[in-house]
C-alpha cells in the first residue's frame, strides 16, 4: 500500500463514524487550544518585555539591595542592643545603611554609587497653579521607563518626568507641550511644615509592565533635595538608609560576576537590568508552564479517548482487517494504517485547536490592549504573539501523543489472524 493511500484510507476511515471521531477530536482540541493560548501568552508578554527593555542593554549599572534570606529567618530578628541603630541602620530592615554604601564604594571596579531614598511629597503644583497629590517613582527606576516625549531626567539635575495621563492637569493636548515646563514640589518636613522646590519637566512617560512610569520619576538629585526637606526639624541624628543603590561598574561585561560576588560577601544583592528582566520573564514562563501542565493533563485524558475509539474501531472492523491481511497486506502496513488513523485524529484536533487558540488569543489581545481597552494604558503591551517554534512543537507533541495512543489498538489490529478474522461474525 502506498503512503498516500494509507493516509487517504485513514482519513476516510475516521470520517466513517463521524460523531465518534468528533468527540475524540474535541478532547484533543481542548488540549491543543489551551497549549496554543498559554504559549502565545508567554510569547506575547516576553516579546513585550524584550521590546521595552531593548534599549537598556547599554546600562552599565548593577542595582544593589540588601539580601533578604527569608528561609533562614523565621519571624522577626531578635533585638541586639550592641548592633547600634545608627551605624548599621539598614541591617535586617530591607534598607541599605550608610556603611553599606561605603563598603560598596570600596569594591574593585566600582566607579560610582548612587542611592535611592524614599522621599515624601505633599503635592506637585503645575505651572497654572493646580496642586495635585502624587507619589514619586524611584529615581533609579528611570532606566526602566518608557518615554514618549522628551527625555529622562539628568540624575544630577533638578529634573523629573510626568506620566502621560497628567496631560489634562497641565492643560496640554500633546505630551510634547509638557516638556520644558517647571513644576513646584511641596515637601513636608519632620514637623509637618511644607517647603517647596522647583523642578523642570524633561519628559513624559507611559506606564510599563514593570510598574514604572505611572508616577512622576524624579532625578536622583531631586529626590535627595526632597529628602533633605523631609529630614529638617528632626531632633537627633537622622539615620541614613537607602532603598537601593545603583552602582556604576567599569566594563560591566567583564567585571559583573566579580562585583556581584563581592557584594554577596557583604550580604548585598546585585542585579543588572538584564537580571531583573530575566526574573520577570521567568515568572511569566513559570505561569505559562503551569497552564501548559493543565493542557498536558487534558491531552493525556484525550489520548485515552483515542485508545478507546480505535479499539472499538478495530473490533468493529475485524472482518475488514482479516480481508486485507488475506489479500496480502502485511502486519506492518495494518499497524501503519491504524496508527495513521490516530495521527489523523491528532492532526484534526491540533489544527483546529491551535488555529482557534491563536485566533482567540489575538482577538482577546486586540480587545484588551486597544486604546480604550482595560489594559490600554500600558506602553507597547501585547499579550499574545505567534511563536512558530512553540506552535510547531505543540503540533508535533500532539501528533506524537496520538500516535502513541494509537499504537495499542494498531498493534491489536496488526496481530489479527486473517482466518479468525474472516470467521468472525
Amino acid at each position, binding site marked *: *500500500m502506498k503512503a498516500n*493511500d494509507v493516509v487517504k484510507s485513514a482519513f476516510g476511515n475516521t470520517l466513517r463514524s463521524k460523531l465518534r471521531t468528533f468527540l475524540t477530536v474535541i478532547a484533543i482540541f481542548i488540549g491543543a487550544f489551551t497549549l496554543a493560548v498559554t504559549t502565545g501568552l508567554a510569547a506575547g508578554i516576553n516579546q513585550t518585555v524584550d521590546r521595552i527593555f531593548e534599549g537598556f542593554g547599554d546600562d552599565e549599572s548593577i542595582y544593589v539591595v540588601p539580601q533578604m534570606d527569608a528561609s533562614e529567618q523565621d519571624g522577626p530578628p531578635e533585638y541586639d542592643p550592641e548592633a547600634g541603630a545608627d551605624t548599621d541602620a539598614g541591617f535586617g530592615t530591607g534598607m541599605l545603611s550608610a556603611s553599606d554604601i561605603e563598603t560598596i564604594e570600596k569594591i574593585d571596579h566600582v566607579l560610582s554609587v548612587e542611592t535611592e531614598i524614599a522621599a515624601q511629597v505633599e503635592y506637585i503644583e503645575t505651572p497654572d497653579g493646580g496642586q495635585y497629590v502624587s507619589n514619586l517613582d524611584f529615581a533609579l527606576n528611570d532606566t526602566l521607563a518608557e518615554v514618549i516625549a522628551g527625555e529622562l531626567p539628568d540624575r544630577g539635575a533638578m529634573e523629573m518626568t510626568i506620566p502621560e495621563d497628567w496631560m489634562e492637569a497641565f492643560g496640554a493636548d500633546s505630551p510634547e507641550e509638557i516638556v520644558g515646563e517647571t513644576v513646584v514640589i511641596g515637601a513636608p518636613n519632620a514637623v509637618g511644615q511644607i517647603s517647596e522646590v522647583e523642578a523642570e519637566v524633561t519628559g513624559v512617560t507611559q506606564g510599563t509592565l514593570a510598574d514604572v512610569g505611572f508616577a512622576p520619576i524624579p532625578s536622583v538629585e531631586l529626590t535627595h533635595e526632597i529628602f533633605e526637606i523631609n529630614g529638617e526639624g528632626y531632633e537627633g541624628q537622622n539615620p541614613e538608609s537607602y532603598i537601593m543603590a545603583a552602582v556604576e561598574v567599569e566594563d560591566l561585561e567583564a567585571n559583573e560576576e566579580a562585583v556581584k560576588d563581592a557584594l554577596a560577601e557583604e550580604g548585598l544583592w546585585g542585579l543588572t537590568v538584564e537580571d531583573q528582566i530575566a526574573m520577570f520573564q521567568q515568572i511569566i514562563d513559570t505561569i505559562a508552564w503551569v497552564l501548559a501542565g493543565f493542557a498536558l493533563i487534558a491531552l493525556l485524558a484525550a489520548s485515552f479517548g483515542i485508545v478507546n475509539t480505535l479499539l472499538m474501531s478495530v473490533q468493529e472492523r475485524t472482518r475488514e482487517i482479516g*480481508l486485507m491481511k*488475506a*489479500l*496480502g*497486506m502485511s*502486519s506492518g502496513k495494518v499497524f501503519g494504517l491504524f496508527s495513521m488513523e490516530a495521527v489523523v485524529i491528532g492532526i484534526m484536533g491540533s489544527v483546529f485547536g491551535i488555529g482557534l487558540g491563536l485566533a482567540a488569543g489575538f482577538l482577546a489581545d486586540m480587545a484588551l490592549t486597544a486604546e480604550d481597552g482595560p489594559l490600554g494604558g500600558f506602553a507597547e503591551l501585547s499579550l499574545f504573539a505567534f511563536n512558530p517554534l512553540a506552535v510547531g512543537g505543540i503540533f508535533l507533541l500532539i501528533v506524537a501523543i496520538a500516535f502513541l495512543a494509537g499504537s495499542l489498538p494498531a498493534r491489536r489490529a496488526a496481530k489479527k489472524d486473517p*482466518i479468525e478474522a474472516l470467521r468472525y461474525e
Partner: protein
Amino acid sequence: MSTPVLETENLVKVYGRGSAAFHALKGLTFEIHRGESVAIVGKSGSGKSTLMHLLALLDEPTSGVVALDGKPVTQLKPKKVSALRNETFGFVFQQFFLNPNQSVLENVTLPLKIAGVSKIERDKRGMKALEQLEMADKAKNKATNLSGGQKQRVCIARALINDPEVLFADEPTGNLDTATSETVEDILFGLHRDHGITLVVVTHDEDLAAKCQRRLIMQDGEIITEEGTR
C-alpha cells in the same frame, strides 16, 4: 512433467491442545499442477476449508510442507508470504467479504491498493475486470446494494484483478440460487479455460465438482478418493 504449482507433503493440522486437540487434517500429500481445475469435496467438517487455508498460505500447518512452485513456504518470512498471497493468489470467499461502505470499484481494486498500484492504474484495471464480469455499470454503487449473484461476481472480479496464477474459491456458489450458481460457474470455468488459471474450488455442490478436471474427496481430515485425471 512440469513442477506442480502447489504440492503438499504429509500435511497435518491440529486445532487445540492436549485432550482438546482436534486433528482437522491427518497427513495429506498431493499435487496441483498449473492450469488444473481441482475440486475439494466432502461433508461439512471434513476439513475442506482448513486445507484450502493452508494451500492459500493463510494459515500454517502443524506439521508437513506446502510448496509453491517447488519451494517450501514454511520457512518464508510473514511479509514475503503476504506478498506471495497478494501477487499469486486470488480468493473468492464463501461469504463475499465485501466492504459495505466502499464502492464496487474500490472493493474490486483492494488487492491492487495493497500492492501499491497507483489510483489511475487501479481504476483502469478494476473497470476492465468489472467489464469482464458485466458489472461495469455498477462500479460506482455501494457494495451493499447488490444482489447475491452480483456480489459474487464482484468477488470474482476482485480475485482476478491481480492476474493470479491460482484462484481459490470456497463454496463460490454456496449462497446462490441454481440459476445464478450456473452463471458464476460459467465465469469461473471460462477463466480457467481462456486464461489458464489454476482453479481450486471447495464445494459440496456435485454439479460444480463434476465440472472440475480432478476431485479430491475428503472425509475426517483425509483424502479418501481422488477422481479424474489431468
